[in-house]
């Protein structure tokens, strides 16, 4: 009799447990979504708290940052100041625990330079990396790219690209790219080549999408620029508008800006877009 | 020539900060001669185990000396010559008996051939052969005790110290151990053992020491209780007169006082004569005893005297 009773109690408890468990997980999901960005142990203490497992802790914290970002992207939530602070400080801690760890540098480049719009922050982190990963050409390459593309500091960019070209495994054209940067500065074709190289180096599907889109936009811009160039060569003057370019036949069709903007022609023959080659921020 | 001598050995046991000190051993002196069997008996807590531990060097005495063959502990190769069986030996759970004996032999610097030979010999004698490859945690209490005896005797020591060797053994086991001790005695080994089982002590020991509250309160020799009284009949009689006692002695019996009357030890072949005499003299026979002097009585007596 007693055994039956015990068994019945057990069954009832199991029966209650399953829905309760589901409810508990849902509630946790909600509370986690509502809590402010995660706390990162200050770098000073993380090494001590690792208790000898610095490498493992760096891996764990990196995963934590990556999942935090991934979850937000997955849930299509906007990123705020707090998020970027978390990412930046987090990646800092991770590289303090293991400065040779390459993943954080890549993540820094992808997130901080592109999404957060804080290329200087990315450069800071990448610079730390160059002290340790001395034979990794990609780190100075990224710094060079950031300087060229975001900060428009062509001289510094050139210096870093040249440094990258000296390191083993770097693509052959880096040498010429570095030289060209020094000479041509802000020409679109340079940016095109750069982007193509970045795309080749990136595995992350999200970032690849972004880069591919940017690349497409630039390719179209370059195409238009070349048409403008031909016009100028023949007519000895810049075209007055996009329509003139079209009607005069130097451009067959007006390509669509992948970012949905309208093409703008500048006085010196360069092509931009009203979209500024960026996605519109998601409406709240 | 004494194998082990204790002189005025004292030991105070300090259990802790807030508990009282206990005088475990108080001015203890005795000597064990070579080739004799010495039994140490006493109530629980008398200090017997402490004494053994001091002889083995597990504990150091606070004062007094312990000599082994005339030399103090540190200078003599004492442990090589001693075989020790503790009370309720706890052996390693996961080792087999064979591995335990190997360890015993190797630590006594025996070569492997000798270890094997002695090991098989002892295990056969103590009926442990089929269990030799089993782990010790599967052994019964009796088997563990016997295994402990193998351990103590493997290196053929000249001095054997046994603490409650019969404890936990069934009658077959006890006979085994008894025979073994007799055998060791015949081989001329010195045997020192503690036991509560007075019967065994009586039968085996040449000398017996009685300990109580850390002191050796009495020492008996074998002659004290078994004076040529093998194959004798012991009669408890009412009190008999001196002249009658003299007559009994002439006829071959021995007499001593026993309570209100007398105890007579009569050799078997003289029994009828003495009995006829007692009958003729009208002496009342109160009963029959199995032994001349009961160690148990002595024990109780001595303890009672001490407590007064």
């Amino acid at each position, binding site marked *: 009799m007693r055994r039956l009773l015990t068994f019945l109690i057990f069954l009832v408890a199991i029966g209650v447990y399953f829905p309760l468990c589901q409810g508990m997980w849902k509630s946790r999901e909600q509370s986690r979504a509502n809590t402010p960005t995660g706390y990162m142990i200050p770098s000073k203490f993380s090494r001590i708290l690792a208790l000898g497992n610095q*490498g493992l802790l*760096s891996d764990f914290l990196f*995963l934590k940052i990556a999942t935090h970002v991934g979850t937000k992207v997955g849930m299509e939530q906007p990123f705020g100041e707090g998020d970027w602070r978390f990412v930046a400080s987090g990646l800092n801690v991770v590289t303090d625990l293991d400065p040779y*760890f390459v993943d954080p540098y890549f993540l820094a480049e992808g997130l901080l330079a592109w999404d957060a719009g804080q290329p200087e922050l990315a450069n800071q982190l990448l610079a730390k990396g160059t002290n340790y990963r001395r034979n990794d050409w990609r780190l100075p390459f990224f710094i060079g790219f950031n300087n060229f593309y975001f900060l428009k500091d062509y001289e510094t960019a050139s210096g870093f690209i040249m440094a990258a070209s000296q390191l083993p495994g770097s693509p052959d054209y880096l040498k010429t790219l570095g030289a060209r940067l020094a000479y041509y500065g802000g020409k679109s074709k340079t940016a095109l080549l750069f982007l193509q190289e970045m795309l080749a180096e990136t595995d992350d599907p999200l970032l690849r999408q972004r880069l591919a889109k940017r690349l497409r936009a630039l390719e179209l811009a370059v195409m238009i620029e070349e048409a403008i160039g031909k016009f100028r060569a023949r007519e000895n003057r810049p075209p007055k508008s996009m329509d003139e370019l079209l009607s005069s036949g130097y451009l067959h069709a007006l390509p669509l800006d992948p970012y949905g903007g309208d093409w703008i022609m500048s006085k010196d023959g360069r092509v931009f877009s009203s979209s500024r080659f960026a996605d519109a921020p998601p409406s709240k | 020539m004494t194998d082990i001598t204790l002189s005025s050995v004292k030991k105070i046991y300090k259990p802790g900060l807030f508990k009282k000190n206990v005088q475990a051993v108080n001015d203890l002196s005795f000597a064990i001669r070579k080739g004799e069997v010495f039994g140490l008996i006493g109530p629980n807590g008398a200090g017997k185990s402490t004494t053994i531990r001091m002889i083995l060097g597990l504990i150091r005495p606070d004062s007094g000396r312990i000599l082994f063959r005339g030399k103090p502990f540190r200078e003599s190769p004492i442990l090589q010559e001693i075989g020790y069986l503790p009370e309720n030996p706890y052996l390693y759970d996961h080792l087999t008996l064979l591995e335990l004996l190997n360890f015993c032999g*190797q630590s006594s610097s025996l070569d492997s051939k000798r270890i094997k030979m002695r090991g098989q010999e002892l295990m056969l004698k103590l009926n442990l052969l089929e269990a030799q490859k089993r782990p010790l945690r599967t052994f019964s209490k009796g088997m563990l005790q016997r295994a402990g005896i193998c351990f103590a005797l493997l290196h053929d020591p000249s001095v054997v110290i046994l603490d409650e060797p019969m404890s936990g053994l069934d009658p077959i086991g006890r006979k085994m151990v008894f025979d073994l001790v007799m055998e060791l005695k015949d081989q001329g080994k010195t045997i020192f053992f503690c036991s509560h089982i007075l019967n065994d002590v009586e039968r085996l020991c040449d000398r017996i020491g009685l300990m109580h509250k850390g002191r050796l309160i009495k020492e008996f020799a074998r002659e004290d209780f078994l004076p040529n009284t093998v194959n004798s009949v012991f009669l408890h009689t009412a009190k008999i007169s001196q002249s009658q006692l003299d007559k009994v002695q002439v006829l071959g019996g021995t007499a001593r006082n026993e309570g209100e009357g007398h105890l007579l030890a009569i050799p078997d072949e003289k029994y009828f004569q003495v009995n006829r005499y007692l009958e003729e003299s009208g002496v009342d026979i109160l009963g029959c005893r199995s032994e001349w002097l009961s160690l148990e009585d002595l024990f109780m007596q001595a303890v009672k005297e001490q407590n007064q």
Partner: protein
Amino acid sequence: MKSVLALATITFKEGIRNRSLFGIALLSLFLFGLNISVAGFFMRDIGKVTVDMNLSALTLAGLLLVFFVGINLIAKDIDRKTIHLVLSKPISRAQYICGKYLGIQFFVTISLLLLLLLSCLTVGLLFKLYPAYFIGFSWLIFFEACLFVLIKFWVLTAVVVFFSSVTTSSLITLIFSLGSYIAGVTIEEVVFYLKTELAAQEKIISESLRTFIDVVSYVLPNFSVFDFTLEAAHGLVVTSDRLLLSLGYAIVYIVIMLSAAAYIFSRREFH
């Protein structure tokens, strides 16, 4: 010497037949499996993550072995009075300490070597799966790191033996040994952190604390000196002078611990 080896042999056998070993082996298998599944979450440095996880798993297993089996190999001897039997043989207290130490050490070594075998299988498997991300991985450096994890446990075992000789309770031995381990892995970080903070003029600590840290850095074993995880993770070469220094430090520390233990043990009484 023969007695020492005999005692070491039975201590080793007693340890290796302990059932706890299964639990620890299972835990390690779990960790290795975890390693394989988690590797895919990382972008590039899979080699590093693999090495990190394997070395940490070996360390965890070693800690469990030393603290739960190793300590008991001495504590049970004393608790159950088996030590009376052992010391009744012509074995000196010092020989007893050495024998016990060697036995526990053999046990930890053999167990960790078996786990290392499993670990190598894991690393090999991941190497085959993601060869592109194991650039710079060197088996030699990985084995060097594993060897020094083992040496770290030789030192920890000596610490355990030392505390066992001092106290009767196995729990106290556990607490002190665990405390020594935690202090040993963090001492380097603390000392260097304090040095950099002081250099940065942030005088947050007092003079006496600094002397205390100095003394402690001599007394406690610095386990960081046996940690080559970073080098193994990134294929950085370790110079032989570093290896020799770590080895020498380990040996001297072990000798100090064991001689202190032998002396203390010789003064002890067994009731």
